[in-house]
């Protein structure tokens, strides 16, 4: 509820504010487009809320990407992406070559999977995943002395291929968002009817502490990114590309700027460091000045946001018609001995990874992804998937890592931190009393994207994000049950 229409007042006032200070300012400056070497600070206000985090990136950001050893046993779950599971097309005992198709897409919102190594299908059965579910999967035994050459496929040329062909080949390559959500990229690039994509945003913010995957990719795979941009422009019919880079990575920005070919509508924007600036919606607002409507995608305001690593992968795989078999992963944290960025075959089990890099004895928590949104793993037999951007190992008192929880003192730190302008304090209290319907209807629970800023700042150590995950889960379950009930009678 607005009080006295504060927001409309702000809009009215906007006309009196000197142009340079206006919130609504231009999105893209065509007169500058196409000039390579352009790096500009974002002219829009960066995230108003949000928090500053200790970055811990220095430990790995200077280390080049290294090839990780091949594991003797690959564990490949068929659910590595958001959507329908892949359909296995190999049988137990079959020998496969690296890059060979193992499973086809299970539907539109699904991607195929390719063999990360040359080896033999040892078993098809249940494999554990990070969510705790057991899903259908493949155990692949690596040939120890194979040269691990990748199978070539049918190349796709960005200039001659049609839009549909490019989208199809992106799906065929098994590419999903490498940032974490692992949403199939072809589905993201498919512009819905009635919408138009004006700008493709390459997300190189990487605001999570510890992670330097995207940073290294931008430094080392700039050519792949530029090649990927050409495919992206073709696939979306967009007029321009903005590469958004976090303010703590000026080297990546200047390196990329030198790589922009003449005449390409690509510009680079540096955005001040703040968490969670890298979230899709926050990024769109910072670059374009507009908010993505609640429950909608950025395409609603004419933008598509793609992770830089995903773009690099497109640029690397499509010219060869290959499928994705490996990705860059940052392995770091206080408990890791050999920190670094590694190019790692997908499906490498966590236990093998940690054995290779070595961990401290007092390590207590292993987390996949960043420390703010990553998932703690209960089981070292799960494997690296396409969505894994980092592996963090934390040390600490194993018996009682949780701080004492105090009652909420209404200090408002969470309200100031929430990038979505929710009221986490109220939501937390409601969640404690299981008032899930109130949370969803009156307090916009479903807009929470679990960035963790509220729980990070809470001086009472209330597990807000955990409460919200639980509440969202309950609300979704209930609404699903309700639709089923309604449709049945």
């Amino acid at each position, binding site marked *: 509820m607005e009080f006295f229409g504060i927001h409309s007042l702000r809009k009215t006032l906007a006309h009196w504010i000197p142009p340079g200070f206006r919130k609504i300012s231009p999105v893209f400056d065509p007169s500058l487009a196409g000039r390579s070497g352009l790096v500009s600070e974002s002219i829009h206000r960066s995230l108003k809320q949000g928090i500053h985090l200790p970055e811990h990136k220095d430990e790995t950001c200077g280390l080049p990407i290294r090839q990780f050893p091949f594991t003797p046993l690959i564990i490949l779950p068929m659910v590595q992406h958001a959507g329908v599971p892949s359909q296995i097309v190999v049988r137990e005992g079959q020998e496969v070559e690296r890059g060979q198709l193992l499973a086809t897409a299970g539907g539109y919102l699904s991607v195929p999977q390719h063999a990360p190594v040359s080896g033999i299908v040892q078993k098809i059965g*249940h494999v554990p995943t990070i969510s705790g579910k057991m899903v259908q999967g493949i155990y692949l035994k690596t040939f120890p002395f194979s040269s691990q050459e990748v199978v070539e496929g049918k190349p796709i040329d960005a200039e001659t291929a049609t839009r549909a062909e490019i989208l199809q080949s992106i799906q065929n390559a098994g590419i999903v968002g490498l940032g974490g959500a692992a949403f199939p990229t072809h589905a993201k690039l498919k512009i819905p009817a009635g919408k138009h994509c004006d700008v493709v945003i390459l997300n190189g913010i990487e605001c999570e502490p510890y992670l330097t995957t995207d940073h290294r990719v931008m430094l080392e795979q700039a050519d792949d990114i530029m090649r990927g941009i050409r495919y992206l422009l073709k696939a979306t019919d967009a007029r321009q590309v903005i590469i958004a880079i976090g303010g703590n990575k000026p080297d990546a920005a200047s390196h990329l700027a030198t790589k922009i070919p003449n005449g390409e509508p690509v510009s680079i924007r540096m955005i001040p460091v703040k968490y969670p600036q890298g979230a899709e919606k926050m990024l769109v607002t910072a670059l374009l000045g507009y908010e993505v409507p609640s429950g909608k995608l950025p395409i609603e305001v004419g933008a598509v946001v793609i992770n830089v690593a995903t773009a690099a992968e497109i640029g690397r795989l499509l010219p060869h018609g290959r499928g994705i078999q490996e990705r860059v992963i940052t392995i770091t944290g206080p408990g890791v001995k050999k920190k670094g960025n590694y190019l790692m075959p997908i499906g490498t089990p966590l236990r093998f990874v940690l054995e290779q890099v070595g961990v401290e004895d007092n390590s207590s928590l292993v987390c996949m992804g960043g420390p703010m949104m990553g998932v*703690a793993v*209960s*089981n070292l037999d799960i494997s690296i998937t396409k969505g894994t951007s980092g592996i963090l190992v934390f040390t600490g008192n*194993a018996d009682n890592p949780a701080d004492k929880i105090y009652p909420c003192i209404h200090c408002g730190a969470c309200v100031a931190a929430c990038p979505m302008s929710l009221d986490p304090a109220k939501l937390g209290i409601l969640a404690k009393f299981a008032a899930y319907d109130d949370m969803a209807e009156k307090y916009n629970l479903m807009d929470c994207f679990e960035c963790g800023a509220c729980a990070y700042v809470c001086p009472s150590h209330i597990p807000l994000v*955990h409460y919200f995950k*639980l509440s969202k889960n309950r609300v979704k379950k209930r609404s699903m049950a309700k639709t089923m009930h309604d449709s049945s009678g």
Partner: protein
Amino acid sequence: MMTILIALAALGCLTLVLAILLIAANKKLHVVEDPRIDTVEAMLPSVNCGACGYPGCRQFAEALVAGKALPGKCSVSTDETRVAIARFLGVALGAEEKRVARLACAGGTNVARNRARYHGVKSCQAASLVSGGGKACFWGCLGYGDCEAVCDFDAITMNAFALPVVDVDKCTACGDCVEVCPKDLFSLHPVSHRLWVNCKNLGQGEAVLEECQVACTACGKCAMDAADNLITMVNNLPVVNYSKNHHTRIPIQRCPTGAIVWLDDQLGAIKGTESKKIVRKGQRRAGIT
């Protein structure tokens, strides 16, 4: 004398005017509602559990009066109440066989291993969102007692090994525990279903026992022993076809782990003669990850 007359007259006039006004208003503004709804609602247990398929007792009462539902649907009321409502409304009872919630897990802390130490909100729902909870068996009961908390009838209590125990007499089959369990371990069954598969582990072979000593290893002996395809193995678990004659204890006898049991009112779950007897009273050691 005069005062009394004045008082009488004044009060009389006043009363008359007001009475006329009220009568007129009563006629004009009257709202009709079937009084039987109130009566029926008063007879219902007013726990608003929703087992009848209506959001609350009031709505159920409305449906009853409107003839859209039968009193037997209310599994919470006693038999007398249901009969009384049926008699009051002059409808059939519409009785159904008593159903109860059954738990398909026997992996208490004494037999099932924890894989990781869970820290956070003490609720199964919450724990299941963090890598599925700390339990080694991905399908097993997490033991934080969401079902105990959600049960309005005190029919569920957590035992010493953090497993819920359903009190068959108190259970009204309202389905709240079915809905709340993140591992979908509860289901509603007629009390006559006594042959029961007490496990949901989809794993196979001895490896399963590493996770839980009473898990089903998918050996298939029960399916072999049962006559007439009463039990089939689906996804490494035996499935009892209750439309066939299931009043037999033969299938449980050779089960090596006691994952398929016979539910007895007095004795609880009875295991077969060949199943391992586990007498550990303490916690099973949390093993390596």
